[in-house]
């Protein structure tokens, strides 16, 4: 009658919608630490900041000036790593590698350690975007183990391509942490901008298709004439919306991610079990050989 052993892991998740000071890492760090403190007092387990949360988005020639290494002796990461002894933290930053290439990065910090760094794979360089001019694209998409189980991180344009979330799903991620600095656009008669409707539709689709949790953290505020719309969301493995942040306002958006729900949904809907990776691989090989 009942489904047997239930995984009883619940994550108190907080998605942070912040407006950043463009190019002022110290001021942004201070704001991060304030939210972390608040989250700690509210017993949050995992706090997720949006894309480039430590720097702002339209950086252009500021990129080298705001870059940091996610290591303990970095003045920005040291206090963040210290704070990660109390709760897990995802921050957005400009990562500079040893050979001075600059990446849009998300770092997962826990227990005073850097658990994983994701480099943005797809750098939009069209329409209002110019990321490819200033940044290097990442070349790996990997799920990683945390104290809550296996997770995956992606940044904005990464999840406009179906393959990165698909790969993370196959690599074992049951919770996708998506971070954006999504410029608001597409004003029409609807009460949401088109950009918000597109992103929310895509996130919900991934939750449904991958029977996984999909959490999206998006910034707010303005940079020159561009607005960022916020509206953080968490969809559960059944595709239901379990948290939705306000549009355009700074906020800490809380959700309880009940990992036991994965089992209930996947028992009903075994899409993961039935996924045919060999078929995908064979067909990709054929298509690439064309």
């Amino acid at each position, binding site marked *: 009658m009942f489904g047997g052993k239930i995984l009883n892991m619940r994550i108190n998740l907080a998605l942070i919608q912040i407006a950043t000071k*463009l190019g002022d890492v110290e001021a942004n760090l201070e704001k991060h630490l304030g939210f972390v403190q608040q989250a700690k007092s509210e017993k949050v387990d995992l706090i997720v900041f949006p894309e480039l949360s430590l720097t702002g988005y339209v950086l252009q020639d500021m990129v080298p000036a705001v870059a940091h290494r996610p290591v303990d002796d970095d003045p920005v990461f040291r206090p963040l790593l210290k704070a990660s002894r109390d709760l897990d933290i995802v921050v957005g930053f400009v990562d500079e590698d040893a050979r001075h290439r600059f990446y849009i990065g998300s770092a997962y910090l826990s227990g005073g350690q850097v658990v994983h760094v994701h480099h943005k794979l797809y750098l939009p360089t069209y329409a209002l975007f110019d990321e490819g001019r200033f940044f290097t694209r990442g070349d790996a998409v990997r799920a990683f183990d945390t104290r809550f189980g296996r997770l995956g991180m992606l940044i904005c344009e990464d999840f406009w391509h179906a393959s990165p979330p698909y790969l993370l799903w196959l690599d074992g991620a049951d919770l996708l942490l998506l971070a954006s600095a999504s410029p608001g656009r597409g004003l029409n008669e609807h009460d949401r901008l088109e950009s918000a409707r597109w992103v929310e539709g895509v996130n919900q689709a991934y939750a449904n298709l991958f029977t996984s949790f999909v959490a999206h953290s998006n910034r707010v505020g303005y940079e020159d004439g561009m607005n960022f719309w916020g509206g953080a969301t968490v969809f559960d493995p059944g595709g239901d919306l379990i948290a939705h942040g306000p549009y355009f306002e700074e906020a800490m958006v809380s959700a309880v991610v009940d990992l036991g729900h994965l089992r209930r949904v996947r028992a009903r809907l075994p899409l993961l079990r039935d996924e045919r990776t060999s078929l995908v691989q064979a067909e990709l090989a054929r298509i690439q050989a064309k």
Partner: protein
Amino acid sequence: MNIDLSIHTGLARKILTGFIRSEITRAGFSRALVGLSGGLDSAVSCVLAAEALGPGNVLAVRLPYRTSSPDSLEDATIVAEQLGVPLETIEITGMVEPLLERDSKIPNVRKGNILARARMIVLYDQSEVWKGLVVGTSNKTEILLGYTTLWGDMAAAINPLGDLYKTQLRQLARALEVPPSVLNKPPSADLWVGQTDEAEMGLRYDEVDKLLYLLVDQRCTPEDCVEAGFDRAYVEKVMLRVRRNHFKRLMPPIAKLSNRTVGYDFLYPRDWGT
């Protein structure tokens, strides 16, 4: 093809007031000023600025010339009083007459440009006195068609209206409860007696906005527009206007000589560091 320029005015209001608040305060100011003509565009800018910053922080400035329509002056007063913003009136007649008198046959276009630029001088000077930034009033239709005076009415610190077509601005004005006399009058730069935008350009806003929406927002080809029911000659006329006036939408090009040049490879957003 469905051409619907309807906007959610509540959403526009939210974004635009947030924009004004953000961009004025991060530049180190708390105040703004708007040249209030009595027309629709400046009324909307003034309402948004008052909502964003508080009416006490927005100065409305009337800048009449001796031929300016008394109705417009009156409408500007009604808007300012309705909002509770301070109102200043600085007549520009005495400033511009000596220049106009140099040429008794001065055509209307030159005269109009002089008036628009004189108003810019006064507004920017008052900006220093008021310790506030000039909020612009140019809409997307004017900007695309170049129906504007370079360094005149285009001059502003920020522009909240530049991505709204005139017909969309009218929807927003209605939602913002701009007085009916302002809403219902024919759009006019009021640079000479009896001037109207539509007569001067030979275009109707309701029609040209739809065409611009197809060409610009929807990236349609001229053929697509003809198929959507627009006359080919009309499409070509509008496209030519958009192209010929593009210079008004850009800073003057700097001749590149060095390895790093402003505008080419010295690239920073305006909000740099704020």
